[in-house]
């Protein structure tokens, strides 16, 4: 039983949190800008590699004494802000010209191009090889015997929960957050009531790109960095956003946790001795869930009010 918690449940929670941080952005961008943002995975990779830069920079300072995980936590604001800036720039150059377009599908095509441009820049500057934030094996802390938790898993879960609470506060208590919800409900109505829609758009990118950058750093912390990590993450993140109902940040959080749990728990030997789904096909679980959701319940499990 405790093995189940150590080896399946905690990794499921960590992966679910990472998916959730990505899915919030996909969901909000869909609600406010009305298009499926296919470059979101590569924004995540951008964040992860900014994290790597921070680790390298801190190596040259007295802070190099600290463990890599702690250095990455220090680097989170940089990854958040850097990726948000990149996203705002991309929006200016490649998405805003189509803001008044009759069909938003042209922006979706543009976002495919942006995804590849971002990925090629990562490959240009960091090469194509797998990079780890830190070498060597990290041993689990035996904090609450017999529970064995990795130090990094504690950081990931705590920071993810904190970010979600801040997001909740932002959306419900601040003027900008309320404006975002208004615009996602009805963009025209929001505009005529004097909401500065371009400002809302900028905040959408700050939150969406910033959160996915944090997800990228966490994924790199938990696994490794490769330039294609964004593409690999894109589908589970979309699956999470769709499962939770596009346009609903809270739904996206739930969707992320569900997809993460399904992927990890699908390899548990529920029936017989072998894993239920061979680990090679683990990622197919998310795609399958997503396709089934799209077909049978395209509005997700949380319908109700939008955003």
């Amino acid at each position, binding site marked *: 039983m405790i093995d189940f918690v150590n080896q399946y449940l905690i990794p499921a929670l960590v992966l679910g949190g990472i998916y959730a941080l990505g899915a919030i952005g996909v969901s909000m961008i869909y609600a406010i800008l009305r298009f499926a943002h296919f470059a979101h995975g590569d924004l995540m990779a951008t964040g992860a590699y900014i994290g790597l830069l921070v680790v390298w920079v801190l190596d040259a300072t007295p802070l190099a004494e600290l463990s890599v995980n702690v250095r990455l936590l220090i680097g989170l604001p940089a990854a958040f802000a850097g990726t948000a800036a990149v996203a705002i720039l991309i929006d200016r150059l490649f998405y805003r010209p189509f803001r008044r377009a009759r069909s938003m599908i042209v922006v979706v095509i543009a976002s495919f191009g942006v995804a590849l441009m971002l990925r090629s820049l990562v*490959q240009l500057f960091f090469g194509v090889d797998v990079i780890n934030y830190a070498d060597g094996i990290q041993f689990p802390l035996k904090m609450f015997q017999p529970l064995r938790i990795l130090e990094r898993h504690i950081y990931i879960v705590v920071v993810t929960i904190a970010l979600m609470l801040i997001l909740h506060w932002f959306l419900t208590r601040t003027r900008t957050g309320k404006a975002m919800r208004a615009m996602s409900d009805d963009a025209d109505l929001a505009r005529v009531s004097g909401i500065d829609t371009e400002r809302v758009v900028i905040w959408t990118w700050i939150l969406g790109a910033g959160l996915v950058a944090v997800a990228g750093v966490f994924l790199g912390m938990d696994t490794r960095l490769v330039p294609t990590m964004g593409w690999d993450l894109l589908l589970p993140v979309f699956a999470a956003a769709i499962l939770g109902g596009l346009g609903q940040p809270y739904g996206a959080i739930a969707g992320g946790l569900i997809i993460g749990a399904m992927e990890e728990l699908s390899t548990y030997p529920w029936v017989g001795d072998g894993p239920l789904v061979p680990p090679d096909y683990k990622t197919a679980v998310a795609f399958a869930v997503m*396709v089934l959701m799209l077909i049978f319940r395209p509005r997700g499990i949380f319908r109700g009010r939008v955003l």
Partner: protein
Amino acid sequence: MELYGLFLFAVGFLTMAMIYAVGSLGVNINWGFTGLFNVGVAGFFAVGAYSSAVLTAPESVNHIGGFGLPVPVGILAAMVLAALVAWPIGRICLRLRSDYLAIATIGIAEILRLSFRNYQPLGGGPFGVNNIPRPFESLPGPWDQIAFLLLVVAIVGVILFLVQRAWAAPWGRVLRAIRENEDAAEAAGKNVEKFRLQAFILGSALMGLFGALMAHYVKIISPEGTEPLLVTFLPWVMLIVGGAGNNKGAVLGAILVWGLWTMTELLTGRLPDEWALRVGYLRIFLIGLLLQVVLQKFPGGLLPERPPTVPRD
């Protein structure tokens, strides 16, 4: 000698461009004609490439096979199997709205690619299928290359003729009507679902043919060969650059974009190895940038679609 090398290079270049033109024409039937946002080209490409490869390649310990069928049979089977795979997918997914359809097709393509990579008997898993026969390869000297190029040009010519006829025919008109306004087409008594499914299957069959031709040309198909960047994204960019909805545009776009792709390779080939590999990624950046410029400055592509004009009185 220099001239001869250049000639061989041109033959190889045109062969690849024509193979890509088949993929681009497939995307055109989906997106250009009907407005179906199918971003799962890689999946149908893989089905076509692996079917034809397994049916025609010699026996191997890595995968089922040893059928040793003639290449034309393999190519036909590739189209039929890609169409058969597309049929249930289309039945289920085509009622989705465009960006949902994009996500669903990407997901299905990834599942197909994952199966080919992990289920070894199907296509040799990570090893792929090797020694795929290429038509005319027994001819001497450059003639094997030239004969294959002529074959591919002939195939593109036949497809171009047929899809152009289809585009101008009432069938093509209904597809355009569905693309422009689905409700209006429905109200005019057209069975929208049926037409969309036909366009989806036909486009997917061409994507399967695209895969089969590529497999026979490069003689090997492995999971890396079905990388979405190369087989989904490039045909899409080719179509958009050439002009979505215009069949000749799809072919022109294939030649231009493959030209840009090859030219950047020539330039980076002169750099030291370590840098060549990295700067090689700049060309992906350039292709992405080209797409953005075309989308913003030439929304219709270089050869915009010109629907047959209806005489007014």
